[in-house]
C-alpha cells in the first residue's frame, strides 16, 4: 500500500511539484538562515582562524573572546615563554584607534600589532607584496575587514592635507599603497593591502608591528593583548594550555576552545546576534508554517480517496502509514532540493558578494530535521480528519 501512497502523492503533478517546492523553499530558508548565522558567527573568531599556527592563546584571566579584551604588561610574554613545552610564543596587540584621512575625515580601525621579528599574525598581502613591508618605518597594512566604503581617501591632490579647512565632501577613491593617514598625530603609510577573513561586526583593520604600536599609542602602558603560543611536539595544546594557566595564572585556551569561547560570548553578549536570531527564527517560522499548511491541505484534499480506501477495508494503521510515508518522502525530497539550492546559491553569493555564508555540517542537518519534524507534525494533524472520517461519505448523497 505504501507504493499506492507514493503514487497518490505523485499522481497530481501540479500539486506534487507545488508541495515539493514549498518544502524545498522551507529547507532552503532554514538552511540558508542557519548558514548565514554560522557565517556571521565564524567571522566573529576570524582573528583566531587567520592565526592558525597558534596552538594556544594566552590572555588576561578576565578575557573570554577576541571581541572584548584588556591588555597585559609586556613582561607577560617572558613568563609564558618560560613555561616548559612552549616551542615559541609571540605577542599580539589589539587596539581600537581613530585614523584621520588626508581630507580631514576619520575612521575607526582595529589595529593589530604583530611580532616584529617573525611577523606572525600578519596577513597575506595583495599585489604580490610580502608582510616584510612592515619592517619599513611607519608602515601599516590595511584591510577592509568585511566593511564596505570605509577606506576612502580624497581623489584629488588638492583635497589632501589642505591648509585651509577640512575637504570633507569631495570625490574619493580606495586607499592605495603609499597613501598616508594620521594616528595620534603620527603619520602611517599604507605599505600593503590585504583581504583576510571578514570580521563580525565588520570593521577596517590596520596591521603593524608590535613596536610600532608603542609609537602610535604612546599613552598605553600595556599593549600585549594575546600571546600566541606554539606547542612543542611532545605536548598537546590542551596540556600546554593547562600548564600555562597553572604556572602563570593567565587564561590559556587552545585555538578551538577560544573559538568556542568567542562564539559563546557573541551569543550571550551581542545584541546584533540576538536581532539576527530573531529575524531568522521569524523566517523559519514562516517557512515551517507554509510547509505545514501545504501538507495538511494535501491530505485534506485527498480525504475522499482515503474514505474509499477505508470503506474497502483499509485499517487506521494502514492509512496512518500512508499519510506518514507521503509526508516523509515529500519532506526528504523537498529538503534535498532545498539544501542543494541553498548550497549553490549560498556558495555563489559567498564567493561573488563576500556574503557571510557558511554551510557547516549541522546546518543542512537542522534543515532536514526541521522540515521532517514539521512535515510529520502536519501529517499527524492531517491524519485526524482521515481517522475520524466516516467512510459512508463515499456513497451518493453523503
Amino acid at each position, binding site marked *: 500500500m505504501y507504493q499506492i501512497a507514493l503514487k497518490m502523492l505523485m499522481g497530481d503533478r501540479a500539486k506534487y511539484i507545488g508541495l515539493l517546492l514549498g518544502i524545498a523553499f522551507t529547507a532552503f530558508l532554514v538552511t540558508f538562515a542557519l548558514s548565514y548565522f554560522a557565517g556571521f558567527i565564524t567571522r566573529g573568531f576570524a582573528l583566531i582562524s587567520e592565526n592558525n599556527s597558534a596552538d594556544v592563546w594566552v590572555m588576561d584571566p578576565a578575557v573570554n573572546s577576541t571581541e572584548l579584551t584588556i591588555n597585559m604588561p609586556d613582561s607577560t610574554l617572558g613568563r609564558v615563554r618560560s613555561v616548559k613545552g612552549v616551542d615559541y610564543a609571540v605577542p599580539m596587540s589589539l587596539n581600537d584607534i581613530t585614523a584621520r584621512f588626508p581630507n580631514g575625515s576619520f575612521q575607526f580601525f582595529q589595529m593589530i600589532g604583530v611580532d616584529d621579528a617573525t611577523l606572525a599574525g600578519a596577513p597575506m598581502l595583495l599585489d604580490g607584496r610580502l608582510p616584510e613591508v612592515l619592517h619599513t618605518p611607519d608602515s601599516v597594512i590595511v584591510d577592509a575587514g568585511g566593511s564596505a566604503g570605509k577606506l576612502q581617501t580624497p581623489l584629488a591632490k588638492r583635497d589632501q592635507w589642505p591648509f585651509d579647512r577640512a575637504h570633507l565632501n569631495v570625490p574619493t577613491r580606495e586607499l592605495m599603497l603609499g597613501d598616508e593617514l594620521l594616528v595620534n598625530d603620527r603619520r602611517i603609510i599604507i605599505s600593503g593591502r590585504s583581504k583576510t577573513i571578514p570580521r563580525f561586526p565588520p570593521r577596517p583593520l590596520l596591521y603593524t608591528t608590535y613596536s610600532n604600536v608603542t609609537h602610535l599609542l604612546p599613552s598605553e602602558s600595556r599593549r600585549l593583548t594575546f600571546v600566541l603560543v606554539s606547542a612543542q611536539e611532545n605536548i598537546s595544546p590542551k596540556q600546554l594550555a593547562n600548564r600555562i594557566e597553572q604556572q602563570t595564572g593567565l587564561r590559556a585556551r587552545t585555538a578551538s576552545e577560544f573559538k568556542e569561547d568567542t562564539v559563546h560570548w557573541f551569543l550571550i553578549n551581542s545584541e546584533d546576534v540576538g536581532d539576527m536570531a530573531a529575524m531568522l527564527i521569524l523566517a523559519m517560522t514562516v517557512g515551517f508554517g507554509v510547509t505545514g499548511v501545504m501538507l495538511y491541505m494535501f491530505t485534506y484534499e485527498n480525504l475522499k480517496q482515503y474514505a474509499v480506501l477505508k470503506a474497502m477495508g*483499509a*485499517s487506521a494503521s494502514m492509512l496512518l502509514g500512508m499519510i506518514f510515508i507521503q509526508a516523509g518522502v515529500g519532506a526528504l525530497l523537498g529538503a534535498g532540493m532545498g539544501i542543494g539550492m541553498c548550497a549553490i546559491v549560498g556558495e555563489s553569493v559567498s564567493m561573488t558578494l563576500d556574503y557571510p555564508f557558511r554551510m557547516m555540517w549541522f546546518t543542512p542537518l537542522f534543515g532536514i530535521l526541521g522540515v521532517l519534524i514539521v512535515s510529520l507534525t502536519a501529517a499527524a494533524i492531517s491524519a485526524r480528519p482521515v481517522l475520524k472520517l466516516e467512510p459512508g461519505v463515499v456513497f451518493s448523497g453523503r
Partner: protein
Amino acid sequence: MSLDAEKKIAVHCRNIIKTYGTGASEVFALRGADLDVYEGELLMLVGPSGCGKTTFISIFTALLSADGGECDILGKDLNTLSSDQKVHLRAKSIGFVFQAFNLLPALTAQENVAVPLLIQGVGRKVAMQEAKLVLDSVGLGARSSALPAELSGGMQQRVAIARALVHHPKLIVCDEPTSSLDHESGHVIMKLLRDIVDNSNTTLIVVTHDDRIYEFADRMAHMDDGKIIKIETMKNQQGIIA
C-alpha cells in the same frame, strides 16, 4: 436464476433504527427497517431521495453503526463485532461499486483493481496479476495501464466493478451504479453485474433510482420514510417469498 425459500440469508436486518443529530434537530433516517437478502440474488433497493437507502446500506456494510436493531451480515452479528473486525469483514467479504466510481486518479486501472488485495496484504505482484485477470473478465484487459481520466464513464464503472470483484467477496453493494452513465453503458454494466450473480454465489444489492434497470433484479425492496414498505419478486424470477 431461480431462488427459493431454502436459500441461505446473506443479509438479515431487523428493526434498524438510525438517527442523526440530537434534541430538536434529531432526524430519523431509519425507523425500524427490516430486510433479508439471500445469497446469490440481485436485490434492488429503491425509493425516493432521503428515504434512508444510503444510511441503510452504510449500516449493513459496517460503515455506520445503527442506534437500534439487529443486523447479521454473512453470518456475523454486527452488534458484536469490534471496529477492527468490521474493517476485516469489509476487506474480506464486501465489495463496493460507487455512483461516482471513486477510482484513485493517480493509479492505473490495473492498480485500482489491485487495491482491495493490497489492503488484505497480498503481495504486489500477485495482486497485479489477479487484477489483470479480472480486468480481462470485464473486457478491459487492453486498457489495464490507462489512468481513470483516460477512460470513459462506462469503462471506469467496469474498472470499479472489477475492483469490487477482485477479492471474491460474498456481498457486493452497488450505489447508483448506472446513474452517471448513459442508457447503453448502464445496460452493459447491469448485464455485467447480472452475469456475476448468475455465475457465482455472490449476493448483489443495488441501490438505484434508475427504473430502466429494474428488469435485472431478482427482487425489489421499496423504501420510504426509513422503512422497507414493500418487497416484490420480479416477473421473470420464481420461488421467492416476498
